[in-house]
């Protein structure tokens, strides 16, 4: 016992010391600091071309009020990428010799701050002629000169030209309150005004048109709304000139205070992605909240130590990193499993089965994953019981069950496609062999130990899977083990201790309960 204690300590110690040095000596962050509103955003564009010539262009965000953009990275997929400036706009252009399908992307890091503009009550700061000319003119999407706009403006009892702020507020109130926002509604300002309902972009265009028509320079801003746990949503608002650009929105309902979930991508209301000469163009934005501040990330990538700097896992390719992140949590799962088996005394099917199941289910929602698992195992069991009568030899019998498991997973993937249900697709990651063995063991256990005992054991197996599952979901643990892989030694040291544990299992206290009661009574 004492010998095992020291051996365990000796195994754990190097890992622990290295860990402590990295944390306290080098100051590496242990847990993700999850900085507020720091995002990694990626625009993915897919095009199919028939002609060789052509181009793709995409609006790119730049730093400005309410946001800091850095760390931009474009993937050009055999094309030439260049960035051009057009007034306040920044546009990325992919050109070159197109052939078939191209995937290009542009990724950047965005720190959203929110934008609060103190709106000046006077009109002392007159806009420059340039701004007046550019942002009060009529365009196809902002039909300032249309008679309907004028008729409407005359009908509104707006404040006089000396109270610009009051006019802007009045117009905002009208568009915000009187025009109904419908998802996927029309985006034309005039139709919006006539029908009193339209989509988000329609409302902002109408607001900008009315502001321009009443003499206030205004422009539409397009961007994204980024919120944790949600896909990025397209957003739009209006900048109105009040001695400076003031963000206002009729669809979101703000005046001068831009919320910190909004990322501005471009000024003007041209489409975010345009292409010339392409047969088809698709694009989508993805956004992931960053777990570390930029300075923390830099410290993890290149620790300030000559020995550690070249071996940081953070410098591996991203795909390898994501595999290792999962892999390094497996020892923690094994540790929990050892505790549950040898200290608690839970009996499961197969030693590592619950850990591997939890690993397989990590891609999907736990409940959906378990239902899928029960589906596959149930199907396999029915087949296994039917096959029992054929008295097939072991290996061919196992192989048939394996084939059925493959078919079941393929079927689920097809259903997943049909219903746009991504969770069903994740069945593809199910460990085939593990499930096959589960079916085999369960059917043997059915025959040898009866339904009740088998179901109890299955319930415990699922229970342990549910207990291990959160380990693979935790960003904190994944960062801890990935940033500090030496902790695996600590896990091994603890396992030596568990391996030398000769005390009772908790399950034995229940099993021998009556014996203890008799001895006591």
């Amino acid at each position: 016992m004492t010998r095992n204690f020291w051996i365990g300590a000796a195994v754990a110690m190097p890992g622990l010391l290295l860990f402590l040095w990295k944390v306290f000596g080098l100051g590496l962050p242990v847990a993700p600091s999850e900085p507020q509103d720091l995002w990694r955003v990626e625009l993915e564009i897919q095009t199919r071309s028939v002609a060789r010539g052509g181009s793709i262009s995409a609006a790119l965000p730049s730093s400005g009020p309410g946001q800091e953009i850095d760390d931009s990275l474009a993937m050009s997929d055999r094309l030439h990428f260049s960035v051009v400036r057009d007034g306040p706009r920044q546009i990325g252009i992919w050109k070159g010799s197109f052939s078939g399908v191209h995937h290009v992307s542009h990724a950047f890091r965005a720190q959203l701050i929110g934008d609060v503009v103190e709106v000046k009550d006077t009109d002392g700061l007159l806009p420059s002629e340039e701004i007046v000319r550019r942002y009060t003119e009529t365009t196809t999407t902002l039909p300032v000169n249309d008679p309907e706009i004028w008729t409407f403006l005359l009908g509104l009892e707006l404040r006089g030209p000396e109270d610009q702020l009051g006019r802007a507020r009045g117009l905002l109130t009208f568009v915000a309150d009187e025009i109904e926002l419908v998802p996927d509604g029309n985006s034309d300002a005039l139709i919006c005004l006539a029908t009193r309902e339209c989509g988000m972009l329609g409302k902002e265009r109408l607001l900008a048109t009315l502001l321009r028509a009443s003499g206030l320079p205004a422009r539409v801003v397009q961007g994204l709304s980024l919120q944790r746990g949600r896909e990025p949503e397209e957003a739009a608002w209006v900048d109105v000139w009040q001695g400076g650009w003031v963000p206002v929105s009729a669809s979101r309902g703000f005046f001068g205070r831009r919320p910190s979930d909004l990322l501005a991508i471009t000024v003007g209301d041209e489409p975010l992605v345009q292409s010339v000469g392409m047969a088809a163009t698709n694009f989508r934005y993805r956004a992931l909240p960053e777990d570390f501040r930029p300075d923390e990330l830099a410290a993890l990538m290149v620790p300030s130590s000559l020995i550690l700097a070249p071996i940081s896992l953070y410098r591996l390719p991203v795909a390898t990193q994501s595999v290792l992140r999962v892999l390094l949590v497996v020892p923690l799962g094994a540790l929990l499993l050892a505790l549950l088996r040898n200290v608690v005394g839970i009996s499961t099917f197969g030693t590592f089965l619950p850990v591997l199941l939890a690993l397989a289910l990590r891609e999907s929602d736990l409940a959906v994953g378990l239902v899928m698992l029960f589906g596959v195992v149930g199907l396999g069991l029915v087949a296994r019981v039917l096959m029992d009568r054929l008295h097939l030899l072991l290996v061919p019998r196992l192989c048939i069950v394996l084939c059925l498991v493959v078919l079941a997973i393929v079927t689920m993937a097809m259903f997943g496609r049909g219903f746009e249900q991504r969770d069903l697709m994740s069945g593809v990651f199910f460990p085939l062999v593990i499930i096959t063995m589960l079916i085999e063991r369960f059917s043997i256990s059915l025959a040898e130990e009866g339904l009740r005992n088998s179901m109890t054991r299955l319930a415990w197996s699922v229970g342990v899977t549910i207990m291990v599952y959160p380990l693979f979901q935790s960003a904190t643990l994944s960062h801890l083990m990935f940033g500090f892989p030496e902790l695996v030694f600590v896990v091994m040291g603890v396992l030596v201790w568990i391996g030398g544990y000769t005390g009772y299992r908790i399950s034995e206290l229940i099993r021998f309960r009556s014996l203890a009661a008799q001895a006591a009574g």
Partner: protein
Amino acid sequence: MLKTLKSLRAMGLLGINRRNTSYTLKWNDRRFYPLVDDKLQTKRLCEQAGIPTARLLTVAERVGDLATLFDELEGHNDFVLKPARGAMGNGILVIKARDGIMLQKAGGSWIDQEAFTFHASGIISGLYALGGRPDVALVEERLIVHPELAAICRDGVPDYRVIVFRGIPVMAMVRLPTEVSAGRANLHQGAVGIGVNLATCRSSHAVIRSRPTTHHPDTGEAVVDRLIPGFARAVDIAVQATDLVHLGYVGADIVVDATRGPVVLELNARPGLAIQIANRCGLLPRLNEVERRWRPGMSLEDRLSLGREIAGRLGAAA
């Protein structure tokens, strides 16, 4: 929970972690496991040493042997077909009578020669073996349950389990099958476990699924404070059999035949812990005492009497 823990510690209950680290892993050398896991090897060792076991009638090691299997049983009217590496009594086919190619099973139904051979081929393909590996089918004589035991339990074959540590018997119990256990002598399937005092050969306590009992549930016969037939001899051959397999911590299963007396059924290198419930007594004090008193070169008689002495002194408190 804490109270349970204290009183289990006080009585020296052996838990599974302790059994594995301090007894099976420490005293049972892995390379001798095949001697007990394969019933054929155990049986051959016992036969060579003159220790009674159920007589082997024939063996089918390969599918090719099946063609002559039935012919080799010519002249035998009752026998048992079983897997050499079976676990928990699975795959055992008991034949109690025959009429030409028709065989009567212990339950009373009849099967033909073909069905018998098919069952044997299932055994060979590993249907009942641990881990599903290919196995060997044995046919051995059918044992007739001792009349005293047959009067207590109607179904199945009762057996005696003796725990032998370093050649010294430390604890024993009788396992009586019940209707609930479907004729099997496994405690967790509902058989009656009866603790037997090694010194007096009398039963002390009885349990069904950890609950105390005094009578057999099927026949209503009293099971507590009975003299157990052939018990002293059973402990004797249990110790002799475990001497053969070089294992330090073994459970020996003994069946008492009506005419031949006790015979060795099988040995187990990882004997269960339920025997402590049947005896209302922990194993640890006895195991510790054995470690203190064991001397190299002890004779069989010395070891048996040391076992009786320890068990008599450290018997159940109740």
